[in-house]
Structure formats: C-alpha cells, structure tokens
C-alpha cells in the first residue's frame, strides 16, 4: 500500500517547501532567494503529486519552476538595484497587511471547506486515474471560452512585452545600452 509512502512524502515535501519559503524572507541575496523559490515550486509540485493531481504537478514544474523563475531572474538582472541586497523594503507595512489578509483568507477557506467528499470505504476503493483527459474534455467542452480567452491573455502579455522593449521614447540612458553591449559581447562568444 502506498499510503505510508504518501504520508512520508507529504511531510518531507511540506518541510522542504515551508523551510525554503521561510528562508526566502531571511536571505539578503536576491539570486539565492530565487533559487530557493524554485525549490518551493518543486516542493509544491511534489505536494500536487501526493494529491493525485499529476497534470497540475507537471504544469507546476514546467511553468513555475521552469519559466516563472526565469522571469524572476530577468527581473533581477534588469533592475538597477540588483547589485544590492533586498534591504530597503519600502512596502513592508502594506505587504505585511496584504500578506496577512491573504493568509487569513486561506486559513478561513481551509477550515470552512468540507474536504472529506469521500470517506471510509469509498476513499479506499477509489483508484488513481490520470487527470489530463478530464482536464482536456473540460477545457474543450464547457470551458472552451476560457480556453480561448487564455490565448488572448497570453497575446496581450506578448504585445505588452513588445511595446515595453521596442518603444523608442523609452530608451533612457546609454549606460545600460553600453553595459548590455558588453554583456552580449561576453555572452555572444558561446
């Protein structure tokens, strides 16, 4: 029976995720924080696996651990203050309020929702089926509009990036250009 393994995996993955998430706040080096963020994403992917959500777990690795973390790295690379640590937190107060509010919502939801949809024998007899066919049928059936609107959302993200990058009025300063040129000269030899 795999339940013992699942319980062990749940606690190990939870410990990895929580310790990494707490370390992100304590670390002063932004790049180290991003690496730990990837560990958090991977731990959450493992937690999704213990919940039998195989597609979500793989999507979590692909999107969050693979792509979103790259965006974080780029955000640090493009920021002028990237050479400093994250010591000057201007929005500590509002951030604490917002984080506390979100945490309160999550806690209230966790206690309010009736999680035990299946109990006893029904839970034991339930067998694992991969979720991807169900997701596909839902995505192309009742939720096809959301499926297409997601494409529009991605389109606007792409257009926004193009506008951000190619706007001729937004070329502030040549120092960034020169530095970037040097970076490409070094990196271009690969």
């Amino acid at each position, binding site marked *: 029976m795999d339940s013992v393994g699942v319980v062990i995996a749940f606690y190990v993955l939870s410990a990895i995720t929580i310790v990494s998430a707490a370390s992100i706040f304590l670390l002063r080096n932004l790049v180290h924080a991003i690496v730990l963020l990837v560990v958090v994403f991977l731990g959450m992917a493992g937690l999704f696996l213990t919940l039998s959500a195989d597609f979500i777990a793989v999507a979590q690795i692909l999107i969050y651990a693979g792509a979103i973390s*790259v965006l974080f790295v780029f955000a640090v690379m493009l920021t002028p203050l990237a050479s400093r640590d994250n010591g000057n937190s201007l929005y500590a107060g509002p951030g604490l309020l917002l984080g506390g509010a979100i945490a309160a919502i999550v806690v209230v939801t966790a206690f309010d929702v009736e999680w035990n949809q299946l109990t006893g024998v029904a839970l034991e007899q339930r067998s694992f089926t991969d979720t*991807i066919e169900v997701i596909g049928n839902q995505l192309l059936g009742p939720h096809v509009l959301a499926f297409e609107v997601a494409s529009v959302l991605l389109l606007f993200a792409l257009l926004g990036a193009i506008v951000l990058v*190619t706007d001729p009025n937004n070329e502030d300063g040549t120092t960034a250009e020169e530095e970037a040129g040097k970076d490409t000269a070094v990196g271009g030899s690969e």
Partner: protein
Amino acid sequence: MIPDEFGRVVILLGVALAFPALPLLVSYLLYLFHIRPERPDPIKHETYECGVIAEGGSWGQFNARYYLFALGFVIFDVEVVFLYPWAVIHADLAATALVKAAIFIGILAFGLAYAWKRGALEWR
C-alpha cells in the same frame, strides 16, 4: 491514491541528486587519501566563460530587451501546457476540437507575427 509509479520518481530524484554529488565526493575522498594533488591557483577559480577572460561582475544592469525573450518563453510555455490536454484527447473528439485549437494557436500566432513585423525578434 497515487499509484506506485510516482514512487519511482523518488528513486529518480535520488539518482539525480547523487549524480552531481558523487564526483565531488570522490574528488574529496581522493584528496583526503592524498591521491589527488591540491594546488590552488587564482586562475583555476576564475569564472569559465568559453576561454574568454570575464570582465567585471555579473551583477550589472542588463538590457531590457532580454525581457522580451524571457516573457516570450513563458508565454509559449503556457501555450504548450494548454495544448497538452488537447493533444491527449483530440483523437476522440470531432473536428471542432481542431478548430478550437486552431483559434487558440492563431491568436498567439498573430502576436508572434506582430512581433516579427515590428522587428522585436531581431537584436538591434
């Protein structure tokens, strides 16, 4: 309950962690038993950049144009995740599923064509 197959992922994880750790461990053991010589050199600790001597730190501010490539990667990565469920079930569905996916890809292809036309994909 998840099947035992996912338990094998843990074995894969162990192998993946051991694979880079093992050479370091073997190297350290060889050093402990004085089989491997220890001759530190500043040049050995330089960052390897394809034989080119690295200039300055890696903490400088990079060009904002890199961001388009990062975001483009994220966008098409998300597109793949959306198309994967479609690819699994499309054989069982009618031709309308093909049209739905074609609309999805078409909207994003429009964005890619626009980026191409504006020259955003070229490095200037």
